């Protein structure tokens, strides 16, 4: 193992643990970072390691979002009582294969036996709809193991691979079973945090791992968020009509989708 690629503060005591990975920066609905941040806070996650960014990220300059300088990072937290290892990371700009192996090297060191990646999937659903979680497995037995969960739906898709799909593929080569969880995110909330998507994911993980999470505050966040959109619908007829169509199961054409997304982005 190339330990110079990590800063390891402590190797946690985990056994047959699960690694949960959330990508920050471009994640639809900010599902991954939202879930990881919540778990770190509620389960008392301890920061145990960090991947050295130098070989994997461009340092040609500094990017900034909303006036804030962004620094690429890849941090691990351990929740020993819950037997979870958590990773929140930016997606590397190059040497992805080495980077993903680096993650799995540390997971090996921490006795990780299962991999879960968390991402939002843009969908033509309304924000008031219940959210399905689309799944992509790298191991048929693992798919069977989670087959009883009704909220999970198998994904069929071809296209450009996300970092999670690449990580799943690398994990399979190393014999680590894993699944990518893709909760649906209404397309018009794709570029902002979607609390209902985060809630759907956490509810599933809560049952799967028996975490007994206190998620009432998330329910409140969802209600508050929906109320904000309701107020917007009352003020703006176009927004109301578009969302109404989605709620009734109709689809929107491309121009209507762009307009709704732009309106929500500018007015919410």
């Amino acid at each position, binding site marked *: 193992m190339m330990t110079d690629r990590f800063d390891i503060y402590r190797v946690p005591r985990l056994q047959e643990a699960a690694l949960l990975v959330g990508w920050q920066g471009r994640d639809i609905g900010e599902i991954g970072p939202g879930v990881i941040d919540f778990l770190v806070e509620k389960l008392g996650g301890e920061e145990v390691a960090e991947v050295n960014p130098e070989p994997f990220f*461009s340092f040609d300059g500094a990017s900034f979002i909303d006036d804030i300088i962004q620094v690429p990072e890849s941090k691990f937290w351990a929740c020993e009582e819950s037997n979870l290892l958590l990773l929140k990371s930016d997606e590397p700009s*190059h040497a*992805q*294969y080495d980077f993903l192996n680096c993650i799995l090297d540390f997971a090996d060191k921490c006795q990780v036996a299962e991999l879960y990646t968390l991402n939002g999937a843009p969908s033509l659903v309304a924000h008031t709809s219940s959210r399905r979680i689309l*799944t*992509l*497995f*790298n191991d*048929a037995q693992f*798919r069977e193991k989670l087959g009883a969960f009704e909220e999970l*739906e*198998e*994904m*069929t*898709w*071809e*296209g*450009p*691979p*996300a970092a999670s*799909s*690449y990580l*799943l*593929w690398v994990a*399979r080569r190393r014999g680590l079973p894993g699944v990518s969880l893709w909760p649906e995110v209404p397309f018009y909330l794709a570029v902002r945090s979607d609390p209902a998507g985060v809630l759907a994911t956490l509810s599933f993980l809560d049952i799967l791992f028996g975490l007994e999470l206190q998620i009432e505050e998330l329910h409140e966040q969802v209600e508050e968020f929906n109320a904000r959109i309701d107020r917007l619908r009352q003020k703006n007829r176009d927004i109301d009509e578009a969302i109404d169509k989605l709620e009734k199961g109709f689809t929107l054409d491309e*121009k209507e989708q762009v307009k709704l997304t732009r309106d929500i982005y500018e007015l919410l």
Partner: protein
Amino acid sequence: MGVVIRRELHLENSELICSWPGIGSIGLVAVDALRSRLRARMFGEIEPWEFFEPTKVVAREGMLEKLVFPRSRFYHSVVEDRDLIFFVGEEQPSLGGKLYARGQQAYRMANMVVDVALANGCRRVYTSGACVSLVHHEMKPRVVAVVSSDELGAEMKKHHNVFLMSDIGEGRDEGVITGLNGLLLSVARKKGLEAACLMGEIPDWLSRTPFPYPKASKSVLEAFSSILGIEIDSSFLDSQSEEIDKVVNSIYEKFPRDVREMYDSRKSLAQPGPISREEAEWMKEHIDEFLKSLAEKQDGENDDDDRPV
């Protein structure tokens, strides 16, 4: 990680012919045509993940079926007791999404390719690409060679329509062959192999467009055919050339008159008195300006299409 050999060949006295994507896909089209016409069989490949990011994921019913990476494959063919190894790369390894190979990864891949050739008794390496020149698009593109020794240069010059770089009359005594086409030659020469890069001419202004240039691929294919002493039917490239010529002519006809007159004077390039560097710079400046205005006009028309009705 590295090279996967699916079929051991144990060749002696073989020759290696390589190609990658580049300007006008000139080398890639020529070498891939040669490979398929000679029914070369795949015998190995370079594992891609060290060099390339995946381009596609295929998922079925919740299962990750596969990731698709750019392929870098070795092929073998025997032509009249002559062992030919082909290496065809779908992409050049490069940092930051550049078209041409560069950096440590590129050097590593070049070494891998040459090492497979050496393990199979290779004595000579050919690469193929584009030579951006002052040729007119109505002229037959020449094949311009850069070689590893004077002896090989003299041998190349014997073939019809093949010229050495220093002979093409544009002050090209020095230069750089970018990407793996050049890097591979350096590595081959360093390891004691003969090496040559055969480049089909493409007009300078067309090198900045996304079109393939089958006319130059045909010249390169004919050169390979002559060098290897084999009959290769290259007529299939004529119909592709005709299609591209229609597009090229439609742009050419819109050139401002003074630019077109200056450009047309290139047709005398095969005669004594080549176009000067200053004239070439003038052409570049004016044609680039013209292409830019054409693109802006096109963008403006597209913007109109996007307006809500």
